[in-house]
């Protein structure tokens, strides 16, 4: 329980797959996902928790995995961009991103998709204002966001 330790064995389920690993207490969840689990779809764009490129869904809630320790995710169910589509078929949201040219370099896209996914689950028919508010935590330096708003609108019911 409350044992004080500098490393810990944790079990997490990522995109339906269960992983058990020993991790240092200091390891950020994003480093665990990218370096230990080799799920490199989630990215790192800053070191201050601003950019959202590392956004993942943990136990149903959208979080930035650079502001969570891996040990804190022990027992959690995590969804990353790799888990969105099944057998390579794009989800309607992924397809809309492509149709509306909502990505250029694609570096922010995985985090952006996770934020939009979380939004649409909670609110299937968001207004433009609600879309902007929901994507406020994800920085994109290529698109100026306009096409991203269009893509999300396109799948909003």
């Amino acid at each position, binding site marked *: 329980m409350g044992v004080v330790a500098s490393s810990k064995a944790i079990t997490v389920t990522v995109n339906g797959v269960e992983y058990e690993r020993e991790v240092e207490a200091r390891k950020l969840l994003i480093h665990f996902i990218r370096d230990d689990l080799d799920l490199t*779809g989630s990215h790192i764009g800053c070191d201050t928790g601003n950019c959202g490129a590392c956004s993942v869904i943990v136990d149903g809630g959208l979080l930035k995995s650079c502001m969570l320790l891996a040990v804190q995710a022990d027992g959690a169910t995590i969804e990353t961009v790799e888990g969105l589509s099944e057998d390579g078929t794009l989800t309607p949201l992924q397809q809309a991103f492509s149709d509306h040219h909502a990505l250029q370099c694609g570096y922010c896209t995985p985090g952006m998709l996770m934020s939009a996914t979380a939004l649409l689950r909670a609110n299937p028919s968001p207004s433009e204002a609600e879309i902007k508010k929901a994507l406020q935590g994800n920085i994109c330096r290529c698109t100026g966001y306009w096409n991203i708003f269009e893509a999300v609108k396109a799948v909003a019911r």
Partner: protein
Amino acid sequence: MSGSTTIAPDPVEILAPQKQWSGQSIPRKEDKRLTQGEGVFVDDVKRHGMGYLHFVRSPYGHAHITSIDVSKAEEIKGVYGTLTGEEVASLTDPFFQLATPPGAHLKDYALAVGKVRYVGEPVVAVVAETRDLARDASELVEVEYEPLEALVDARRALDDATPVLHDDAGSNLMWEGVYEWGDLDAAFAEADRIVKIKELHFHRFNSTPLECDGALVEYNRGTGQWTIHTNNQFPGFAAIMMGPAMRTGLDKLRFVTQDIGGGFGNKITSHPQLVACCLLARKLNRPVQWTEWRTDFHLSMSHGNERWFHDTEVAVKSDGTLLGFRTKALDDAGAWLRYEPLGGVIWAQVTPGMYKWRNIRLEFTQVATNKAPCSPNRGYSRMQHLWFTERMIDIVAHELELDPVDVRKRNYVKAEDMPYETPNGCVYDSGDYAQMLDLALELIGWEGIDERKNEARSRGKIVGVGIGSTLDSGTNNFGQSRLINPELQFSGNNEVATVKLDIFGEIVVTLGTTPQGQGHETTAAQVVADILGCPVDDVHVRAGHDSYWNSHAGFSGTYASQFAVTGLSAVKGATDMLAEQIKRLGSVILGGVPVEALELAEGTVRIKDNPEAALPFMACGAIINANNAGLPEDLDVTLNCRYVYRPPFEVPDVERKFGNLTLTYAAQIHAAVVEIDPETGHYEIVDYAAVDDCGLRIHPQIVEGQVMGATAQALGAAMHESFEYDGDGNLLTPNFYDYHVPHALDMPPLRTGYIESASPFTPLGTKGMGEGGGAGIHAVCAAVQDAMRGHGDAIVYDSWNPYARVWELLNKPEHARALVEVVSS
């Protein structure tokens, strides 16, 4: 153009493709992997036994390094080794300098040697088993410094009392040159009014690509060759910087890239860090991985050029006709010349802006300061100059109470003047600026702007509207480097593509470029499919860049708005060759039908009058690659074609500083409406319009995407983003805490428009584009200044106008007013 000594290229015949694929916004080939998190970015590349590199960086803006002790770091278990400046200085030669003296004397190495010159400068590199351990160990490296006074204000750089950064140069002056064309005295004599502007300042920022720099470097002891997996966006340049410094041939430096998380020019000058990785990969005999984090990037990588314009004088007729201007540009290059002083001439691609004035004098001085080195940033050097040009236009209009629209239309280069030779010999290929402006004004609702201002006033707000017109000169003539240093043996430009028809009929395309989101795989496929008459899905364009393929040349890369010209013209050239070979093979197999009687359609080569007689590409590929017995000996067909596109350039006249510096001159005109809260200076952009003309568009959606993205970057730079330093040389905006880039909620409503004036000088009628966003900075500055009319009448004198400055402009306009003066003559 008669009587002019133009060196304009001969117009080429535009072979308009069937327009089957080109001109359509087809789905991007890149998107499937990128939307599924299956792209491969540099930090995704891993190798067995790789060590992680962490740089120990300077905490001082300017200091002597008195001692370095790495022993404590190297003692730690799991630390593989270190690299110091002294080692670098013994193992490598200083990077080649583009400048003439004094800049030429700089001794620039991969790590600081003896002295540090900016906060964040790499001093020691530590490599360890894990990322964390590398950083832990770097904290145990003991570096003793003897702090020196830092130079942060370029305006003090040449004062006697100011410390000199580079003893080798003996001065903080890096490069200077005088550019003069036309007859200044005549112009000023003819002027009715002379508008004098004491000082204007273009601030320091960059595009902060979301992915920072990085590399994974492997050294092959057997072949002595380095494989450099990196997101450097101009491997051709990195190679010519690194090879001589590392005392190795360029073929020993293999650059590999797949996906790059944004570049915007900021990823051109990572060669010092790459050299450190190479030396350590060899020293430690293991792969070395380096990832730059956000704060490292802000501290040390590729700041955009900060520039001052002093003692500007504009000669104007009372009707607003512009006759000429003179100014003194002072450019702050930061601590090293990593790509500079090219910024000292790049601006000259757009010397008169979009205007017809012919009498221009610009004294350019570039100095070193204790700040991060400057390198290309989207709009590189032209943005600074075009901002200055637009400032002159709007300040003249403001002071002479003229309509900024009228002043622009009166002075714009007109459609009928195209191609237009500028006073310095650049040839604007095509365009209709006035028509673009009309479109922008319509989109922004210029007509109803007065009602809008009144309505805002009733809410206690002030509305201002402004125009920003800008050029996006693309496809460099590297000969312009000789205006900086006549000894340099660079000129022209080139790009390469290969197209082959493989054994099972696959069409495989390789590019020399390093795209960062511009969709090259898609647009290249469109061009190929149009020529070969096959579905775009049948064209496989290899992702990324590998200098071991034969598809790269000295200027290969993705920078300076050129793919639509250099990249796609190379693709077109190679595909035309392949098409011709397929027909020659077809004429043999189809029984000696003349090549003229054949056409390529539906993935076959067939007889025009008898489409039934068709040979599928698959058969062509099989015959040449696997079933070629009995083919005529003289049939010279490989179905594997490489083409190098070489734009038509002359070496500029160094004496007159005269010549065509880029091949195409795309244009953008933006208009912005700002609404200011006078009590706080807080303001918002409440409406925005951007109109683009980049000639024929292969993929309109991608073009519009570039316009949008560059616009967003400009709005961020105009309002919030600035690399600000304190007096000791500490960067006060070293990450996204204080360096605020636009977020979703910051984006204004946007309307976009376009016209297409085909370039007469490019094989596809295209123009390079992507860097025209600077117009956003010009437009916001103009709009803020417009809002000041009747509220103190301040002029906008800085390109960075955060709320605090806008509040000052409104409440203490005296400073701004004192900067401008109108003299009647």
